[in-house]
């Protein structure tokens, strides 16, 4: 497994080349460097996976945890040290595949999407940086390495969201994304510090006795770490950065904000899962409730969005919440007895990465075609973009959980896991799944069906109402279509991967079997959702939709504004922190502390000016003072001494 080092080294190398010399390279060369290195990484990742899983299980029936590289990067205390290395176990190998696949797709796709953009080389440099950091994150041998790459991932996300750095919204979004996740990372860091102190190590396999003796601190530490994960994975109420992050180029949204980085939180919880389940099952359940609420919240909000990327963003939030729920409902690490969620979560992570990546790439193709994010500018596109249409439909079916697309299988496992934890949870999550189907198909119909915006514009143009001839939507170039088709194929087929064979909570093989009741009920709900969407949106705005809109105007308004969460955060940051704390502190510094120092200065000066008049050169006053002094001295000497 020595070649794994190249999985990390190549993207880093290509980042360095592109960052240092990129501006001088032609676009094509820069893109090729990035893509080639990523292709090699992908091949290596698959080779690694083949070797790893091909080697089979060890004597104990588990896949071994391999650590081909590990060295001490920075010794801190006698016991604690930051190590850097590569660790291979089932989930990290799976993540390697996911990341390299999606990343490669995005690299290829970007050739078409970003063609001719200014800063093309920079874009590829950042992509390489991101891929490097994300890969480093998943193969981390210890929590601190994870944190380091976690930060790097955050910064590459920041750079990529702010890629269009002349756009105001992009600047604000990138800043917001970084600061919100940084805020969450603070908790992550504190959690790590607690964990490190009590476990005596940063590694994922601490001395259990030490953890037992630490008592309540470990659940607290794990909870804090989860907050960090919630920040990256956009759990309520730290989700606010993700919709705004859609200001970045769409392929970036596909890679970072749909497939890979945002699931880092899930990955973190999965990574720490043995410790969670052993020492803090209650924290896991809190995670489940947070996840369930987030799933519902995001699904509802997604129904009311008009910007197609925002819809996808909220759908991402909702789907990640599904994964969190799946992890949270685990009650043991045995997949047969309450530990199914772990596998389900990882499975969903895998399938979701594919179909959500596909959705974003499709959205990118559409945006590329109509030059807008707003669904009002779309409609009736199926004629113009057949391939995009088909792949998008596949992705929608997958996310809605329709047999035999991959989403069906993974979502079904999640719901089964929920059911084994609490039937109510299952009902609730199935409802959210139905809602998912609804809003995805709403989106689908609004884009591809209904009245064509282009045609209506064209009609207006011909009548002479508008001056500019509207831009004809066109199918995307091959560089964009190929990745979409590949991902669509994976989305179709991934469900049949015997996932339980490879990844389970305790490492033992688990054969996925469908829980028929759950499967049927969830499929039914999904179909209901799709049907509703079909009725409401297939033929454009019809009566039902309009009455619904009028009836629940307030609610829709609130959902459109994401239930005013952004306004709340804005209030907290702008009004409370900036105006309420920072300004007063700056004022206090200037007018109290600094003024006090100035006062010392001016008091000295004033005093000096006052006593200067004593030194007036006027002998008479000298004498008066002298005589008074003499008198006082004389009186003292005569009467007191």
């Amino acid at each position, binding site marked *: 497994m020595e070649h794994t080092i190249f999985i990390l080294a190549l993207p880093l190398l290509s980042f360095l080349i592109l960052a240092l010399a990129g501006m001088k390279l032609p676009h094509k060369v820069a893109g090729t460097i990035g893509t080639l290195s990523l292709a090699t990484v992908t091949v290596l990742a698959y080779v690694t996976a083949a070797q790893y899983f091909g080697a089979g299980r060890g004597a104990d029936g588990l896949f071994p945890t391999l650590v081909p590289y590990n060295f001490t990067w920075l010794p801190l205390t006698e016991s604690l040290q930051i190590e850097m290395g590569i660790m291979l176990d089932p989930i990290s190998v799976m993540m390697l595949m996911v990341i390299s696949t999606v990343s490669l797709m995005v690299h290829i796709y970007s050739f078409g999407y970003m063609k001719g953009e200014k800063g093309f080389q920079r874009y590829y440099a950042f992509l390489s940086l991101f891929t490097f950091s994300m890969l480093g994150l998943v193969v981390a041998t210890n929590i601190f390495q994870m944190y380091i790459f976690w930060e790097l991932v955050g910064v590459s996300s920041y750079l990529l969201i702010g890629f269009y750095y002349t756009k105001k919204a992009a600047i604000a979004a990138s800043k917001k994304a970084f600061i919100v996740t940084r805020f969450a990372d603070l908790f992550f860091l504190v959690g790590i510090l607690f964990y490190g102190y009590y476990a005596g190590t940063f590694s994922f396999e601490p001395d259990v006795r030490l953890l037992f003796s630490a008592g309540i601190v470990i659940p607290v530490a794990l909870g804090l770490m989860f907050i960090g994960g919630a920040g990256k994975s956009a759990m309520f109420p730290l989700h606010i950065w993700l919709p705004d992050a859609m200001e970045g180029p769409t392929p970036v949204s596909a890679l970072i904000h749909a497939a890979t980085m945002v699931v880092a939180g899930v990955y973190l919880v999965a990574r720490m899962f043995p410790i969670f389940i052993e020492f803090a099952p209650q924290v896991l359940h809190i995670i489940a409730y947070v996840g369930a609420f987030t799933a519902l919240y995001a699904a509802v909000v997604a129904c009311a969005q008009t910007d197609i990327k925002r819809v996808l963003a909220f759908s991402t939030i909702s789907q990640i919440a599904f994964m969190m729920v799946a992890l949270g409902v685990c009650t043991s690490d045995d997949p047969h007895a309450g530990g199914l969620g772990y596998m389900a979560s990882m499975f969903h992570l895998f399938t979701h990465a594919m179909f959500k990546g596909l959705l974003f790439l499709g959205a990118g193709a559409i945006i590329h075609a109509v030059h807008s994010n707003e669904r009002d500018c779309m409609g009736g596109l199926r004629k113009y973009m057949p391939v995009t249409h088909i792949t998008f439909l596949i992705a929608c079916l997958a996310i809605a959980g329709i047999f035999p697309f991959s989403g069906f299988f993974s979502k079904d496992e999640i719901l089964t896991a929920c059911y084994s934890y609490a039937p109510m949870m299952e009902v609730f999550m199935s409802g959210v799944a139905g809602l998912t189907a609804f809003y995805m198909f709403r989106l689908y119909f609004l884009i591809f069906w209904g009245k064509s915006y282009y045609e209506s514009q064209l009609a207006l143009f011909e009548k002479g109402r508008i001056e500019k001839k509207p831009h004809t939507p066109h199918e995307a170039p091959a560089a964009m279509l190929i990745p979409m088709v590949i991902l669509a194929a994976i989305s179709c087929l991934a469900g049949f991967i015997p996932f339980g064979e490879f990844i389970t909570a305790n490492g033992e093989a688990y054969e996925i079997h469908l829980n028929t009741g759950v499967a049927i009920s969830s499929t039914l709900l999904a179909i209901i959702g799709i049907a509703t969407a079909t009725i409401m949106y297939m033929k454009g705005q019809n009566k039902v939709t309009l009455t619904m809109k009028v009836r629940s105007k307030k609610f829709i308004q609130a959902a459109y504004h994401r239930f005013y969460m952004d306004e709340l955060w804005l209030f907290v940051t702008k009004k409370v922190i900036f105006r309420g704390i920072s300004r007063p502190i700056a004022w206090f510094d200037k007018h109290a502390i600094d003024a006090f120092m100035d006062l010392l200065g001016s008091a000295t000066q004033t005093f000096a000016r006052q006593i*200067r008049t004593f*030194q*007036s*050169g*006027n002998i*008479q006053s000298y*004498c*008066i003072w002298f*005589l008074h002094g003499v008198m006082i001295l004389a009186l003292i000497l005569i009467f007191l001494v």
Partner: protein
Amino acid sequence: MIPAEYYLVLAALLFFIGVFGFFTRRNLLGVLISTELVLNAVDINFAVFNAYYFPEHLEGFFFTMFAIGIAASETAVAIAIILNVYRNMRTIRLKELKKLKF
């Protein structure tokens, strides 16, 4: 025989009247006049101490004499300065003489 204390009290009175004048005068000549009073009072004391307590030697006597001499020279110089100041500044009021101040 007049008691020595009478002379001393008189001298003290003169002395402090001189001091008072020295403080309150606003004019160089006035200040100088007050100084003369002070000197005078001291002269009286010298003479009285000599005459009453140590008549065998003439120390007080001579001190007074020298003091008178010195007072004379001092006054001469002082008045010369005052005249000079007046010639340059056209005033001898203390308030207005502040060219050397600060």
